């Protein structure tokens, strides 16, 4: 494990997360849970004209899950649903700037999986 995983940027996102909170009556939302760390994150997406107009997350977890949720919600804004569905592990490693390794990847991808699950439940 390299200390690069705990680079200034991710720690800053963890300590001062962007987009933390709830969107009342969101177009789509999903609650994700990672039993490894007990990370518990709910993603809220507001969708307008097939694009994400706003994204927020709420919950508790480790620095990697909260840090990536903060970065990812920034990243999702303005993206189309098709673009989000195509996102995967490379999206997360790009945001982090490092491959978190097989175990911590579960923490890092939790919010993306929750966002994609939220879209599955979205019908419009």
């Amino acid at each position, binding site marked *: *494990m*390299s*200390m690069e*995983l*705990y680079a200034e940027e991710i*720690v800053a996102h*963890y*300590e001062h997360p962007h987009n933390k909170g709830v969107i009342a009556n969101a177009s789509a939302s999903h609650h994700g849970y990672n039993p*490894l*760390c*007990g990370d518990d994150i709910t993603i809220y997406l507001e969708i307008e004209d097939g694009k994400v107009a706003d994204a927020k997350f709420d919950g*508790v*977890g*480790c*620095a*990697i899950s909260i840090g990536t949720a903060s970065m990812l919600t920034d990243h999702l804004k303005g993206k189309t649903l098709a673009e989000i569905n195509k996102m995967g592990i490379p999206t997360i490693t790009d945001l982090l700037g490092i491959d978190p390794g097989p175990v*911590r990847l579960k*923490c890092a991808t939790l919010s993306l999986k929750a966002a994609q699950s939220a879209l599955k439940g979205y019908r419009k």
Partner: protein
Amino acid sequence: MSLDVEKIRKDFPILKIKIDGKPLIYLDSAATSQKPKKVINAISKYYKTYNANIHRGVYQIAEKATFEYEKSKKKVASFINADSIEEIVYTRNTTESINLVARTWAEQNIGKGDRILITEMEHHSNIVPWIDLVKRKGAILDYIKLNQNHDELDGNSVKEQMEKRPKLVAITHASNVLGTIVDVKSMAKTAHENGARILIDGAQSVPHMPVDVREIDADFYAFSGHKMLGPTGIGVLYAKKELLDYMPPMFGGGDMIKTVERFSYTPNDLPWKFEAGTANIEGGIALGVAVDYLKKIGMKNVRDHEKRLTNYALEKLSSVKHVKVYGLPVNRLDERGGVVAFSIDDIHPHDVASIFDTEGVAIRAGHHCAMPLVVEVLKQPALSRMSFYIYNNEEDVDKAIAAIEKVKNTFKINKTEVLA
């Protein structure tokens, strides 16, 4: 006599490896212990020189394999002072040993409305089999509560629950999270006085302290080989012969029978009645070698060494700011095993363990397979834990303390303090 840690360390090949160029500091023996050369060599010697099935072949290597496997049972029986090898059933691990009791003895002896009594500091392996059993039988599962400090069993709760006259008390000998050692001898006495049988989870005790199942008067005693220098996949269920005699086999097949007819069979003698199919032969033999290794050091010396290290760790940690340590205080080391669970402010333990790993320090982070204790009682999502064994020294503890500082720097905890 104190134990010669530097000499012992040389027996463990893994302690020579490097993690990103740094020496491995292994502080997770409560999860699994490392293995000495003798144990590793015993496995390869079996495969290289006398690999054969046991209790079948009449040729020389089959006889040797059978002899060595049965000899390992004698070593294990004597290690915990069982009456004979008839009382030593090999399983895969502690979990399987407990499940064996749940699926055989309890299946026959627990009925509707009967009570099973466990505690709030059990490992999942001593919770889940009983949740399933009470569902199957319409029985009741009760918990002995922890005290207000959350560091030992509450005496009133013990009394109150025992008076409900459970049929079975299933209890840990030493908590894998708090390190708290339970006075199982007194528990067994109380259980018996109230008409209960007692099962003791010895996963965290047999590797670390002298254990005498007859002195405790345990009815069932379960432990794992891999936490006591042995390989994975071999565990032990000790049970009193008078109980094993009447328990039905858990699995049917080869080796657990004397004779088979088309519609009936006669089960084998103890302990083989409970060991269907080809056994983990190399695991049993290597466990015997692990027992020899521990006996040579002396279990009292093992215990004293771990007490010293725990004392050292607790003293050091007491002066580290932002660290909370769980379990009994330093003045009660006689009742505390070599396990130190801690948290650093609200930093998630997985972040703690990942940062420790960058220094080559292996600790456990998580709910430690004890979610009712960690999540419901201690109200933590997870905890970090260092645990000690015969190959650990004060330097290992110092490295862990240094890693704590690295965690605090990464999350700028110290800086916050200066600003405040």
